[in-house]
């Protein structure tokens, strides 16, 4: 490592103002601090600092995303081979590899586009490169359907990074969750690629792997997709392929929980997401207040809807527990709502913010047939209201202080 350090020190002057490559200073610094923890010491203020920094924080979040991502890759392969009727003949490894190859290009595109813009804007501002996009760039491929074309991801990522983040001042200044803006952009610009029965299961081969024809009777509909198109009062959510005699078997709570169902890449397995949640909560990175209250809000609203279930809204027949296992609810609760920058920042505010996200997700899901899933819209909506919630919480603190001043003296 000493050699590397020496080499970096040798080339460093080229990147400083006046040097040959001064235009790449931010990028150089980015890589230098990536390789070596900066050894600048405190000049004023406290003399010692906690070991945590923004790089470590983002690393932990990515680590927490891995279970859901890896499971998502496997599930992409699983759904594919199920659709072409070769599931039993395909090994676990092949299934995973198929999914891995299908998902990897999306991750690469998202990172290349997003980080590229991040690098350029850091250099323009003369800032250090900030790590926020490392997480957003991983989230983006996980919340899109597997068949989203790469160019769409590139366009949407570019839009989100520039208009949802950089124009507000970069990491820490954005109002909306960047990954969700990417998804919202795709959702409204290319609706046919973001919902429906044909996007959530990849039928075609990936780099020549897994070619085959879909089995007869394959539907490709996600459980929430089925709900949205349901017309009768009896809800039956089924598998995408019929069994030997042509019957569609019903999928159970256990299936939703494990996640071997069609859906966006990273969102299907509640179990994998909960492992991520455990990492985030144990390390103290994410707010348990938000996470808890999103689930509470979702359960409460779903319970309410279930109590007054009506045939007009088939979703209301689904049990509350199923609701939080279905679709993107758990993923949004664990990874989206807990984004500290776009969420509420006061402790009391976090409870309100989270509860409303949970409740609104279920409201959209059940009572608006136009949108099968409400998690994205609920989080984005509450992003808008988070500052308002905080405003009132801060206001109550101020009121308390004024009251004390009026009373005068000892409390």
């Amino acid at each position: 490592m000493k050699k590397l350090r020496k080499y970096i020190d040798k080339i460093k002057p080229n990147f400083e103002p006046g040097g040959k490559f001064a235009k790449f200073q931010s990028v150089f610094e980015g890589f230098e601090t990536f390789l070596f923890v900066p050894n600048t010491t405190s000049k004023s203020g406290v003399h010692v600092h906690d070991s945590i920094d923004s790089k470590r924080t983002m690393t932990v979040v990515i680590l927490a995303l891995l279970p859901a991502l890896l499971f998502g890759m496997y599930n992409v392969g699983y759904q594919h081979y199920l659709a072409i009727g070769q599931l039993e003949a395909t090994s676990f490894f092949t299934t995973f590899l198929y999914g891995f190859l299908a998902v990897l290009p999306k991750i690469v595109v998202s990172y290349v586009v997003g980080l590229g813009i991040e690098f350029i804007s850091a250099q323009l501002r003369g800032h250090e490169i900030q790590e926020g996009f490392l997480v957003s760039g991983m989230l983006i491929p996980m919340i899109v359907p597997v068949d989203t074309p790469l160019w769409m991801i590139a366009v949407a990522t570019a839009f989100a990074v520039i208009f949802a983040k950089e124009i507000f001042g970069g990491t820490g200044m954005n109002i909306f969750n960047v990954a969700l803006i990417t998804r919202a952009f795709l959702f409204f610009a290319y609706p046919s690629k973001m919902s429906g029965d044909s996007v959530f299961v990849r039928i075609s081969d990936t780099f020549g792997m897994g070619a085959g024809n879909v089995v007869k009777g394959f539907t490709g509909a996600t459980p929430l997709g089925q709900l949205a198109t349901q017309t009768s009062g009896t809800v039956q959510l089924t598998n995408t392929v019929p069994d030997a005699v042509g019957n569609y078997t019903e999928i159970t709570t256990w299936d939703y929980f494990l996640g071997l169902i069609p859906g966006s890449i990273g969102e299907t397995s509640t179990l994998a997401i909960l492992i991520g949640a455990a990492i985030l909560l144990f390390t103290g990175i994410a707010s348990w207040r938000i996470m808890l209250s999103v689930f509470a809000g979702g359960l409460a609203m779903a319970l309410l809807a279930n109590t007054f279930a009506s045939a007009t809204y088939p979703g209301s027949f689904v049990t509350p527990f199923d609701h939080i296992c279905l679709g993107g609810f758990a993923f949004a609760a664990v990874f989206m709502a807990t984004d500290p920058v776009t969420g509420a920042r006061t402790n009391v505010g976090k409870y309100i913010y989270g509860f409303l996200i949970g409740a609104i997700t279920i409201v959209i899901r059940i009572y608006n047939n136009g949108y099968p899933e409400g998690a994205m819209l609920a989080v984005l909506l509450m992003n808008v209201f988070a500052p308002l919630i905080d405003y009132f919480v801060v206001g109550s603190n101020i009121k308390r202080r004024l009251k004390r001043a009026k009373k005068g003296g000892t409390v």
Partner: protein
Amino acid sequence: MADLVKIKRGLDIPLVGEATKNIQPAAKAEMYAIVPDDFHGVVPKILVKSGDEVKVGTPLMCDKNRPEIKFVSPVSGTVEAINRGERRKVLEIVVKSDDKFDAVKFESLDVNKMEPQAIKDTLLESGLFAFIKQRPYDVIANPEVAPRDIFVTAFDSAPLAPDFEFVAKGEGKALQAGIDALAKLTSGKVYVGVKADSQLALTGCQIVKFKGVHPAGNVGVQIANIAPVNKGEVVWTLSAFDLLLIGRLFATGKLDFSRIITLAGSEVKTPVYVKTVMGASISSIISSNIKEADYNQRIISGNVLTGTKVSAEDYLRAYSKQVTIIPEGDDCNEFVGWATPGCGKFSVSRTYFSWLFGKNKKYNIDARLRGGERGIIMSGEYDSVFPMDILPEFLVKAVIAFDIDKMENLGIYEVAPEDFALCEFVDTSKLPLQQIIRNGLDALMKEMN
């Protein structure tokens, strides 16, 4: 208000190198100095010149704007030099000691018979008034404004700080005299914040016990939990370590600036208590009790949270109760440190595997920032170490924007930079919060007066 206040939000940073309860006399110091920078907001007017004979208590300088506030020599001898820096700023006034500690005489100091004005005059004349600070603004108190209450913190909860009751052993009389003197300066109460297991027996004041983690010993936290400062009110604050100096004068009639401090930190060979005098040269305090090292070491006059970086050639700062030595860490190049398990790295979060070693493990933390400065990203970090009914993040943001209304509403009058020291320690974004608050207080004071 309860008699026992529990402080839960906070943090005792587990540093290695705690001093054993064993007092050693410091080596004889030749040079002593006072440093104008210690007295925030004071514009120094020098009252002596090089070569002047001084006694303990001879004014060396005063505040240009408030000449009644004087700063005196802690020793007797001759003025050696007045060192100046850029733009002729006075860096330090150095006095060469004659080792006699001849003190200026004060007549008839029976606190019980003295008028409040006489007590105040004595404090001003003896230079001891400089140890009394005020909230709002955390500057040396304005002697003209009578305080609502006076708050004394009788323990220091900062990392590696000395134990006050150990230091003050045998000085109960002086402490009581100090309290009696303070009691005459306010129509309100004198509150003394002590540790939960305190043995202090004092009369004429209200004792409030505090239990819990740092910053329980910060006077600001104690005020917030006893009787918070509202807009328009002024309270005086001081540390019992400094009250001892005041008490000695009223108890014995003699000025005595000697202090028992801790010499602590991971780079100290045998961390101990050291008996020295305010302003003594750092080298006399450390002498040979420092580890030999081929890396850089950082000497801090004060604790690791609020102290000042000094060198061995500098002097013990006026308000310092300890000298801490830690590794500087600037020669350390840690390869992909953000990805390592980090078993030996201290963090309040559990993002490094050091949590495996439990809460009793002590750490050797160097002076590195350990990360780049970022915008405020994480929420709730500051709140977890800020035990007042104040929203620290929102206050900091109001200060950065210098929105006076908001600063007032959010409690700027109740805080001092030191209250934000732990926030600065835990901050993922590595922002200089104490500096931000200090600048905000200064700007606000200018605006208001």
